């Protein structure tokens, strides 16, 4: 135990910090970007502090616990383990990147940064909450600013994109809410930890059945649906390309980098602990969906002409691996080998969450730069030979692209490798099919590289300015992080692995 867990409510502080920043940003007009940057930096510092002070045994630390609405089992209950802390760091990084990526001449910056920071607060909150109500509040809270960010600063079809995004996620939320209502009714608790303990002994299912009849499976499906929309899992993904494409790029960075992780996080923190057994029962169809997501995501990416849509679908594909890993490990593990596979898969999933966040955010950042430099062009066919006028740009974006492709040595590789390492023994068919996705992704990304960077220089690209000093400095840490994790994955794995072991030990499939 360290001193942070005993008294100082650092998680609350972390959640409130962006809100304070948001309030200041709202009224600081032209200086809003600076305010937001400072706020995001401080948040990142606090997040890293939290990450470094985690309990070594992978259990949940820095717990804050207080009664809130006892009659509804609502408590103010916060805490993080390796998974949560990693997500906090990721969120802080992505927010920082996103703010960095915003053009300086921006209309109504006060409101924009205010919303971004509120979104950050929502992310922090949902990654630290251990009570359903509390968690749900932040889950929804993050939705609202995201909606307005798309709605107010998006592209041509922002209206429908924002609405689609909102309605889909909201529908998922209702499914979640109803399922949790049922759980609450049966158990009288909304506490994730307590519920997980009940589930690990099978008592949860008994209680639900006793109260409501044999509906546990439906509750599991409701919860899964809520998360599946957010991640997304095919066929719940249709909101995504539209939203990613229409959102301004900094917002897309937030959407893909951090918000999509809320779904995966939810699966690991909530769905698997509470409904592991049910998920294992419908594992096969889920695996089919996950594999479809992987393959079809990649395939759809190949068919796109718009860079943003390409990466939007490629995001679907990348997150598909996470889903694949999660569903694959949902199986009773008798042997040590199987348990090791599960651990590997889960480690991979968590790593992949982090890596995909960084990489995808970086890619959309690059797209933002392209758009800014060419006055809005972002079709694959619009470019050519960019490496000649802008070699540094091409180089750095290339690194990000290769990371996305999963080149060993870069961060993307480690996560995917661990996932496949874990999934193959557990569900070899799905894994095999998913390999196809890897290949297609590779083809897609290479095509992008080829069309955008090589070949004859497109006429309007001849004056494409290279990255200036400030941009290089801003991008350098991100690219550095990709190499760092690619080369030293244990930086993350070491802190995540105890958590993974701890989690797996308590799950019942």
């Amino acid at each position, binding site marked *: 135990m360290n001193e942070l867990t005993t008294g100082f409510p650092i998680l609350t502080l972390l959640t409130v910090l962006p809100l304070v920043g948001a309030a200041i940003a709202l009224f600081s007009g032209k200086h809003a970007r600076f305010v937001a940057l400072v706020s995001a930096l401080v948040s990142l510092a606090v997040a890293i502090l939290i990450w470094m002070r985690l309990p070594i045994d992978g259990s949940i630390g820095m717990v804050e616990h207080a009664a809130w609405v006892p009659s509804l089992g609502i408590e103010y209950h916060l805490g993080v383990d390796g998974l949560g802390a990693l997500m906090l760091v990721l969120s802080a990084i992505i927010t920082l990147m996103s703010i960095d990526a915003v053009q300086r001449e921006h209309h109504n910056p006060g409101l924009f940064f205010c919303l971004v920071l509120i979104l950050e607060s929502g992310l922090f909150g949902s990654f630290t909450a251990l009570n359903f109500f509390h968690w749900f509040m932040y889950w929804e*809270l993050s939705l*609202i600013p995201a909606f307005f960010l798309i709605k107010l600063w998006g592209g041509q079809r922002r209206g429908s994109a924002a609405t689609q995004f909102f309605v889909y996620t909201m529908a998922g939320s209702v499914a979640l809410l109803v399922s949790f209502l049922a759980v609450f009714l049966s158990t009288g608790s909304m506490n994730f930890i307590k519920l997980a303990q009940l589930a690990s002994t099978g008592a949860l299912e008994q209680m639900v059945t006793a109260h409501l009849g044999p509906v546990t499976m439906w509750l599991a499906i409701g919860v899964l649906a809520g998360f599946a929309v957010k991640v997304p899992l095919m066929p719940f993904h249709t909101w995504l390309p539209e939203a990613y494409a229409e959102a301004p790029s900094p917002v897309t960075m937030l959407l893909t980098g951090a918000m999509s992780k809320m779904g995966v996080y939810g699966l690991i923190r909530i769905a698997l602990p509470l409904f592991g057994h049910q998920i294992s029962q419908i594992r096969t169809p889920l695996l089919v969906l996950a594999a479809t997501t992987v393959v079809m995501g990649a395939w759809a990416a190949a068919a796109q002409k718009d860079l943003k849509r390409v990466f939007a679908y490629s995001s679907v594909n990348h997150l598909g691996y996470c889903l694949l890993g999660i569903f694959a490990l949902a199986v009773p593990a008798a042997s040590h080998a199987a348990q090791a596979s599960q651990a590997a898969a889960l480690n991979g999933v968590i790593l992949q969450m982090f890596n995909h966040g960084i990489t995808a955010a970086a890619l959309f950042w690059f797209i933002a730069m392209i758009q800014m430099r060419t006055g809005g062009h972002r079709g694959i066919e619009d470019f050519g030979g960019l490496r000649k006028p802008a070699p540094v740009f091409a180089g750095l974006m290339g690194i990000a692209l290769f990371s996305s492709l999963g080149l060993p040595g870069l961060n993307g590789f480690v996560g995917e490798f661990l996932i496949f390492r874990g999934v193959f023994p557990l569900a070899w068919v799905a894994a095999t099919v998913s390999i196809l996705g890897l290949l297609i992704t590779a083809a897609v990304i290479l095509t992008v590289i080829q069309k955008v960077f090589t070949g004859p220089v497109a006429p309007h690209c001849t004056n494409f300015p290279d990255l200036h000093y400030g941009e290089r400095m801003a991008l350098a840490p991100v690219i550095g992080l990709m190499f760092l994790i690619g080369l030293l994955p244990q930086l993350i794995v070491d802190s995540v692995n105890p958590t993974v072991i701890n989690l797996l030990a308590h799950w019942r499939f």
Partner: protein
Amino acid sequence: MLAWTIYLSFAGALIEALLPKGKAGLARWFALCIALLGLLHAVGGFIQGIGQGRNVIVDVPWVPSMGIHFLLAADGISRVLVLLTGLAAVAGILFSWNVEHRTNEFFAFYLALIGGVYGVFLSFDLFLLFVFYEIAIVPKYFLIAIWGSTRREYGAMKLALYSFVGSAMVLIGLLAAYSTAGSHSTSLIDLAHAGLPVSFQMWCFPLVFIGFAILAGMWPFHTWAPTGHVAAPTAASMLLAGVVMKLGAYGCLRVGMGLFPRGLDAWGWTFLGIGSWRDVFAILAVIGIVYGALVALAQTDFKFVIGYSSVSHMGFVLLGLMTLNQIGVTGAVLQMFSHGVIAGLLFAIVGRVVYDRTHTRQFAELEPMHLARRLPFAAWAFVIAGMASMGLPGFSGFVAELQVLIGAWIAKPWWTVAAGLGIVIGVAYTWRALQKAFFGDRLPTAEEHPKIGWPDLGAITWPEITGVALLTLTSFAVGLYPRILLDTIEPAVKALLAGGGQ
């Protein structure tokens, strides 16, 4: 302390009517002072009442020959609703600051209405309750008919007649209960202990319940609500949705369920799965939830959306009442409070902040105005109100609707499923209204400056900001820390349910 809310309001109404005409400022400030004093007393009474059960405030024989008493008392439910009335009254006056036409009459009717509402919530004599209930009808009519907008005379008349028909049903039930009980007392407590025969309760309960539920906007007797809300001036629609509909729901709870608890028993036979009045009203409530939401989704008039949303939200109250369990009924009471605050806020934004400036409520005309830029305050206030209205966590509506849903689930799960559907549609119509009214897609370009072609909308005034802040913070406070109200409501509901009435 609480009784002063009634006296103050009526005295204020009288004085307001006698104030010299043409001094709008004086009339406003006076009304605001009265409302604030009322709120002060309501808050004082609420705080005093924490941890207490029912306490009698005034008990004077009124018509001794018939056993009628001027009996004012308050339990947790009353205190919460009186608090709501105080808030709504103050907010309503703040949003009526721009009433220039016959100002003192406006506030006179307004305060009379408020007084009647306070009276209903505090009466523990059935007869007195009915008197106050009817007193509230007339000022309502005039407020709408004189100061209203769209089809105001129609809306006002419809509202008045619906209310009066409802109260006629209540009166019949009241007379029947009074003569059947034969106890020569009209005190709710005495009547509840009179041991009315079950067969009598069986037919008297639906009569009284429907009578009150008409005012609560229960489907299919809800049609006064949208037209009435739309026709009403801002303050009146705030009060209508904010507190007057609560009168109905309160009556259903206090009188209908309190006096005739056995009226909810099973009939002994079932038809299509309906086996008691409870099933009937619960189904009507669920239909109201879904129907109100669906119709709200199809409206082209901004205020109609809110009007129908009230029908939908009040459906939750009625559903909560019909759960007959602690959590559901508590949720219903909390939802009364929550909807009172939120609907008031929504109507204030639509009626005062937007309509009084743009003079249109049609989405088609509001869309290109791009109000989000021209009236950012209105837009963001509506965003917050909309979030509260659709029941996002952190606002009062969530806790309330959650409790109702849980209660309904305990009672009959499929009610919850249907009501959940209503919530989903609720999100859709709120969001649709929000987009169409404030965040129109047709953006004026840089050259086509938004100011061109439209009249100056005028700055947001301090009463509007104060009013929005008051209601938003209330909803937020209750949403974040619902125990401030729940601790008061729960014991009262418990007593009401356990006592087989009072």
